[in-house]
């Protein structure tokens, strides 16, 4: 039963890294489309620009990051690793990237001829990904409570994609276009079943882990997954039913129940963060806090949309869920995960050097891979961009361009921070703690009996340079650092 048990730390860095590094590029593309399409973008849910921007973000950014992260986290959670991880990642990424790019181009230019290769590539990537993860979950040996949630999220992603394909075929004029019923369902499964559910079940693991809080309440963990499944199924049935008083009431009740699930998650997270024992300031926690406030704001917009029926509130609901809630969670997690993975990778490389009798180095730790200062700048840039997009929806003629610029700045910064983290290079000394400290570090067989004094200020130069390509991350030994003093 346990024959295939694998407790390895992680798949090769290149597996998640390719998804993490290409994701912000789609964010940049979305901001550029917003910039050039201008205020017309918000005039309707169906404008080409709106469809292109939405899919740039949901598929190109969020789903990309989530595909990379699940491949990373699954072996840790359930003790079953994906076999041939590099090949699988290449297969998924190789279809995903051009597929999403073609889909966005076809939305922008309305070229039915491009829709077909786009959906073939996306379908190939999603089927491979969901298939591999579901198989891995099936083989997994740990009864981790998040596993059924990840399974449901995979199914939701697949269903969202099938509905998306039907909509695209309808959009291209090949089959009838079931709008808005199928679009609304596509949105519900995608936002709530895929993005929302995955964030919630991953939070059950990472919030207690990274922020040293208590566990999420048992009842919440027990009820969330079946509740999401039942509510999505109910929604799927009700959306096709003819509107009458009973059906309308049922729809409002289902929506209220979905809002309640999200509200319980938001309040539980805030409470756990409030009573955490890790009282030091942590940028990662601030990203989560921002995300949760945005989720509460999303619910307020949703209620306002229901009461007033005004389209801008409906738009704000979707926008704040994605760009407010999900964006803050995903960015915060991305910064933390990337910093840790780079550290782990350098650590392994360093051990490799030492095993070959070369001097070892003190590896730059997480805050040196991605400094808190950079994370703070990203947090404020995100907050500003979020405020601007709310403004742009309410006052499109005045604030659309500034909002597009704000998002362009945010995604540019994110791209730079992640790219730089992946290739640490000599950087100017930073003031850390109180003054400069010198450390004694015994450095492997070549220096046995001696101790190297390495100034922390020069560590980035001491460490080997890492180069990253879309395929692999190779470490080039930098030789003996010049600044060492024996």
């Amino acid at each position, binding site marked *: 039963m*346990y024959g295939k*048990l*694998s*407790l*390895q*730390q992680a798949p090769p860095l290149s597996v998640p890294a390719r998804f993490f590094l290409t994701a912000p590029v789609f964010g940049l593309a979305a901001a550029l489309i917003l910039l050039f399409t201008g205020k017309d973008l918000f005039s309707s849910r169906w404008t080409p620009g709106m469809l292109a921007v939405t899919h740039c973000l949901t598929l190109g950014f969020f789903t990309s990051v989530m595909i990379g992260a699940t491949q990373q986290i699954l072996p*840790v*959670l*359930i*003790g079953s690793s994906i076999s041939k991880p590099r090949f699988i990642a290449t297969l998924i990424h190789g279809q995903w990237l051009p597929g999403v790019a073609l889909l966005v181009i076809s939305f922008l230019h309305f070229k039915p001829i491009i829709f077909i290769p786009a959906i073939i590539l996306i379908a190939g990537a999603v089927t491979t990904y969901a298939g591999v993860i579901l198989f891995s979950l099936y083989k997994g*040996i*740990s*009864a*981790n409570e998040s596993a059924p949630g990840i399974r449901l999220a995979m199914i939701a992603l697949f269903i969202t994609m099938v509905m998306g394909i039907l909509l695209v075929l309808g959009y291209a004029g090949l089959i009838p276009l079931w709008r808005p019923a199928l679009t609304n369902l596509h949105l519900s499964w995608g936002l709530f079943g895929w993005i929302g559910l995955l964030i919630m079940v991953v939070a059950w*693991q990472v919030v207690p*882990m*990274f922020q*040293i809080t208590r566990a999420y309440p048992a009842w919440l963990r027990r009820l969330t997954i079946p509740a999401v499944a039942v509510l999505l199924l109910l929604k799927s049935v009700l959306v096709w039913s003819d509107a009458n008083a009973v059906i309308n009431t049922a729809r409002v009740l289902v929506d209220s129940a979905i809002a309640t699930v999200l509200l319980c998650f938001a309040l539980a997270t805030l409470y756990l963060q409030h009573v*955490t*024992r*890790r*009282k*030091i*300031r942590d940028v990662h926690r601030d990203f989560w806090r921002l995300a949760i406030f945005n989720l509460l704001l999303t619910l307020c917009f949703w209620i306002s949309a229901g009461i007033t029926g005004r389209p801008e509130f409906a738009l704000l609901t979707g926008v704040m869920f994605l760009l407010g809630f999900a964006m803050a969670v995903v960015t915060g997690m991305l910064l*933390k995960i990337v910093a*840790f993975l780079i*550290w*782990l990778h350098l*650590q392994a490389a360093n051990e490799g050097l030492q095993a070959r009798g070369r001097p070892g180095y*003190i590896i730059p*730790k*997480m*805050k*040196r891979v991605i400094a808190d200062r950079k994370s703070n700048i990203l947090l404020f840039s995100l907050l500003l961009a979020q405020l601007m997009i709310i403004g742009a929806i309410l006052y499109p003629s005045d604030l659309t361009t500034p909002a597009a610029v704000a998002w362009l700045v945010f995604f540019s910064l994110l791209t730079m921070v992640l790219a730089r983290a992946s290739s640490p290079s000599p950087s100017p000394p930073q*003031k*850390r*703690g*109180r*003054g400069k*400290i*010198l*450390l*004694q570090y015994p450095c492997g067989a070549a220096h046995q009996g001696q101790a190297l004094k390495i100034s*922390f200020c020069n560590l980035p130069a001491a460490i080997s340079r890492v180069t990253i390509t879309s395929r692999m991350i190779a470490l080039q030994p930098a030789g003996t650092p010049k600044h060492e003093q024996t």
Partner: protein
Amino acid sequence: MTTITEYMTGVHRHCDEILAELEVAVSEDDWDKAARLSADFLQAMEHHLTMEETVLFPAFEQKTGMIGGPTMIMREEHRQMRELFQQLQWALDGKASGEFLDTTETLLILMQQHNIKEEGILYPMSDQHLGTDAPQVLARMQKV
């Protein structure tokens, strides 16, 4: 009756809590308190790792025949943690708060992903495979 999973999970939480308090002390530049908590933390961690390496892992390996598998990975991660313990001590000696908190941040993530694997997989497997021997193994661990 306490299982290995319950007992060891409790030890993990205890270590997490000391680490959290230690970070607060360092961020407030309370180095006396930090030195005390750091000693507590390192002692608790070392005791925990030793319990696993000298009693639990050998018992697990003997019962399952899995030598060089999961326990080898766990030992490898213990070694990585000990390297960070060493750097934590250096940062404490140098009263370098930035360096200290960078080390605890990295250590925290390393420890937590390690703990998830142990609590979710290795400990439950130990309880299951050791069966009636589990209480005796636990008693030996507690004597370390």
